[in-house]
């Protein structure tokens, strides 16, 4: 019993890790396609702007342009027919001091926006799994 349970757990971990997102555009469509991503990005940018913690970093940023860039980026990441032509994540965030708490705050705001857009939790996490590794380029303060 004991051994079998451990083996099962290991199999679950090994089977699931690495198998992040299958190729294809399933997630793109689950997120509502291009239109859904545009709504999500606009909602998310509004929330980020209004947030006490991370909002100041968005002062003077063209919201329309930013949300279009984010929609493009998400679209490309999730297998949609888009080309993200914005800067890499390191350059895009380089001038702002961002610590891990800031990063998590932004994750929460994105979750709020996804909730508001009525996206199922499992779909939300598939997108977050693609975005989370970006912390390596975005978090620039200890």
């Amino acid at each position: 019993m004991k051994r079998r349970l451990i083996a099962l757990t290991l199999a679950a971990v090994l089977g699931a890790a690495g198998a992040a997102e299958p190729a294809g555009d399933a997630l793109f469509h689950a997120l509502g396609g291009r239109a859904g991503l545009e709504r999500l990005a606009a909602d998310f940018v509004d929330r980020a702007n209004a947030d006490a913690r991370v909002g100041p970093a968005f002062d003077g940023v063209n919201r329309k342009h930013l949300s279009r860039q984010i929609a493009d980026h998400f679209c490309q990441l999730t297998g949609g027919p888009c080309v993200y032509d914005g800067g890499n994540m390191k350059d895009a965030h380089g001038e702002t001091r961002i610590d891990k708490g800031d990063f998590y705050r932004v994750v929460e705001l994105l979750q709020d926006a996804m909730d508001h857009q009525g996206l199922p939790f499992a779909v939300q996490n598939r997108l977050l799994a693609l975005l989370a590794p970006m912390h390596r380029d975005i978090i620039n303060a200890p």
Partner: protein
Amino acid sequence: MRTAPRRTTPLRRGLAILCFGLGVLAAPALAASGKPLLTGGVSSIDGAAGGGLTPWALTGSYATANESGLTAFITRVALQDYALDVRGVAWSWNERLELSFARQDFDTRATGTALGLPGLHLKQDIVALKLRLAGDAILDPDRWQPQWALGIEHKSLDADGLTPTLRALGADTSGTEVYLSATKLLLAQSVLVNATLRATRANQNGLLGHGGTGQRHHSLQPEVSLAWLLNRRVAVGAEYRAKPDKLNPSLLGDGLREDDWWDLFVAWTPNKHVSLTAAYVDLGRIVPAVQTRRQTGAYLSLQLAY
């Protein structure tokens, strides 16, 4: 040996928790940041952050880099023939270090009476330290590397009238356990997995002391948890904790043999200050010389975080 009676009544305990709770509500700004909901785990019965029965590599509370957090909890495990009450606190810092303290009170009920010790409560204090060694359980879903933590738990037992018996059985009333935990959030699957390997010689988690005649050494025991996140606030899962069996055989033959533990749980965190966990637990046989049936029952835990 009889120690001075502890003066904490349930009422006092309740008041203390209420005050803490009000403090938490009054200062929401402190913990407005931090890790996402549920990622602080809950308070294990030994005080360390984790599942209900086993510690995880995650540090407690929602404190992330350069932040510190506090949690306090009360847990009740109501079994067929016994009851366990636990309360404790934990402090964690920078997702690096966690210090916890828990006090367990095990009501032996009819078993105590059968042993000629009516009203016997086994009281155990657990001081524990957890150090994150490497990895990030949450933010690296594209990598295999889990979050690793090394922990140490020191348990001291006040067995009251049972102390001479434990001595005769060759069990020490205090003991230290070391564990290594690996935790990984499989984000795309909304599943959290933990595996812990504990070096222990604790009998019934230390409530019957540590080791026995002829069985003095620690052994390695695996513990696993699987949690499925249903939404941002609710997780359901299962845990399995293997245990040593150092009092089997003993003077009582196999009358003190013990079994592995498992549970099925649901945890709910309405916000970053409160979590409630309910579980069905099966703690196997506990002193089968007196109570032969498996000790199944309910586990209920309230945690406040700050």
